[in-house]
């Protein structure tokens, strides 16, 4: 059975800086996998490589056993790979209804439709409402995204990625910047993701990592430093040293 996501020798340089250094990474099906590492370790670069925002200078990427190294961004989404961004990347003038609806509609190939009015397909609305309920956004469905509270926007960020019905979901610091009071909603939303979605989580918040993840990979200076189960990594003195050198993680 193929791995949900795999990279072999993935490499990316920016001039003299090697941001991603020979990374061979494996994401199992149904995984709850966290990627941690000090600031500047190259975690977001890695996600950008996986999703096609950046092109690797060397190495290959496999999604469900299929080589996607040369595939275009939007094609990867259609093949089942979705992500959230560390800083919300949403559509300021659109509503959550339209945002999630867009993702669903594109997934079903309806994005090319230039004649039928949006919302004429009832089952798309039903699916949007279902996703909104899952992410506690029902009351916000018709408000402009720019008017939503940050915590709600963050939930929308995850919801829209989820609406692509991905097989692999990459979450880039989902709880980042969310006020204390709203964090539990994010944590609950992440925890309730169905098992048929394999999740790779980048996080600094160790509570979230330890409560959510089953396996952890540690990225340092662009290279995979350590990998193992949550207990193994939590107890590993070398991992602690890498973090202690950086100071407090946040």
């Amino acid at each position, binding site marked *: 059975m193929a791995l949900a996501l795999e990279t072999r020798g993935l490499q990316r340089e920016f001039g003299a800086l090697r941001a991603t250094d020979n990374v061979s990474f494996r994401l199992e099906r149904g995984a709850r996998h966290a990627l941690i590492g000090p600031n500047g370790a190259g975690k977001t670069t890695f996600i950008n490589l996986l*999703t096609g*925002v950046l092109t690797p200078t060397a190495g290959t990427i496999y999604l469900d056993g299929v080589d996607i190294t040369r595939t*275009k*961004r*939007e094609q990867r*989404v*259609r093949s089942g790979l*979705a*992500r959230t*961004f560390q800083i919300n*990347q*949403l*559509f*300021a*003038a*659109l509503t959550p*209804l*339209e*945002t999630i*609806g*867009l*993702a669903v*509609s*594109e*997934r079903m190939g*309806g*994005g*090319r*439709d*230039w*004649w*039928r*009015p*949006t*919302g004429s397909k*009832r*089952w798309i*609305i*039903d*699916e*949007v*409402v*279902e996703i*909104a*309920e899952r992410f506690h956004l*029902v009351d916000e*469905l*018709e408000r402009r995204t720019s008017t939503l509270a940050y915590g709600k926007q963050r939930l929308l960020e995850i919801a*829209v*990625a989820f*609406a*692509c019905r991905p097989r692999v979901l990459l979450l880039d610091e989902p709880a980042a910047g969310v006020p204390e009071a709203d964090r539990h909603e994010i944590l609950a939303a992440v925890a309730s993701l169905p098992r048929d979605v394999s999740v790779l989580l980048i996080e600094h918040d160790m509570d979230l990592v330890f409560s959510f993840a089953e396996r952890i990979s540690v990225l340092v200076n662009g290279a995979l430093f350590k990998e193992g189960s949550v207990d193994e990594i939590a107890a590993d003195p070398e991992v602690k040293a890498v973090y202690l050198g950086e100071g407090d993680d946040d």
Partner: protein
Amino acid sequence: MTISLATDHPGMAPSTSERVAAALKRRRRWRTAETVFWAAAVASVFLIPSKHLILNEIAILGLFALSLDLLLGYAGVISLGHAAFFGVGAYCAGLLAKAGIAEPVVGLAAAAALTAVLGFATSFLVLRGADLTRLMVTMGIALILGELANQMAWLTGGADGLQGIVMGPILGQFDFDLFGTTAYCYSLTVLFVLFLAARRITNSPFGLSLLSVRDNPLRAAAVGVPVNARLVRVYTLAAAYAGVAGALLAQTTQFVSVDVLEFHRSADVLLILIIGGTGYLYGGLVGAVLFKLLQDVLAGFTPQYWHFWIGIFLIALVLVGRERVVGGVADTVRRLLARRAGKE
């Protein structure tokens, strides 16, 4: 697939899905202000017969600005060379008429087809690179076509313009008259039909994907929108619309001036759209009315140098802040005419 949450038991509160579907439907509905707008346009045919010539120009400018709105207001592409398509459409219709095919609607169709092809061909150039490159490429294309028009005087009449265009009756029935009445009705009808189509297109999933590309192309790609493919489409569409506007000009004024491809045309249409507001389709139309009024007033003082005042206006507009000047008026207009406010 999900199980629908709809129920149709009488007396039960509507489910969220039903509520949402109903709200979407309400949003698409024609607003009173819209009906008033078009009714006024039609009424002006009967009520202000002396002004039909200028009203015709407004309708054509409005269509031209509408085409730019599709590009700028809905897809976020800044073009400084949109006059390229306007000009090509004008020459196409003019030349076709001179070649003997004088039925206006056929001329429109031909102009639309030609400019669509041109738009499609140049769209790939426009998509590459960032804002500045895009500006340059759009300007460059218009400049090339302008040079071509100038050089190929044997075809286009060069600096003297294309003259001697004689149009046949529209659909074999309606002759063009001296007062511009037929011209205005013709332009207004074409504008209305194309407006309806644009309204439909922008309310479709395709239109929604354009808005997403405008607001955040990074995120749009991340939800599976094929950004470049959509931009190519809207660019082609916008080109065709501009081509029709140019053709209307050639047909109703029976003359094509060589300045139809000049930079100031592209700059003027951009200004028109900005005055009226982008992203809700009426901006170009409202802007065209305001612009023509402004032009009339200014040309009253200084017939030769009115572009000076346009320049002052632009500078002041940007310094004060577009939202503050246009915003107050445009927001009210937008609320009346459409629910969505565009991002500028």
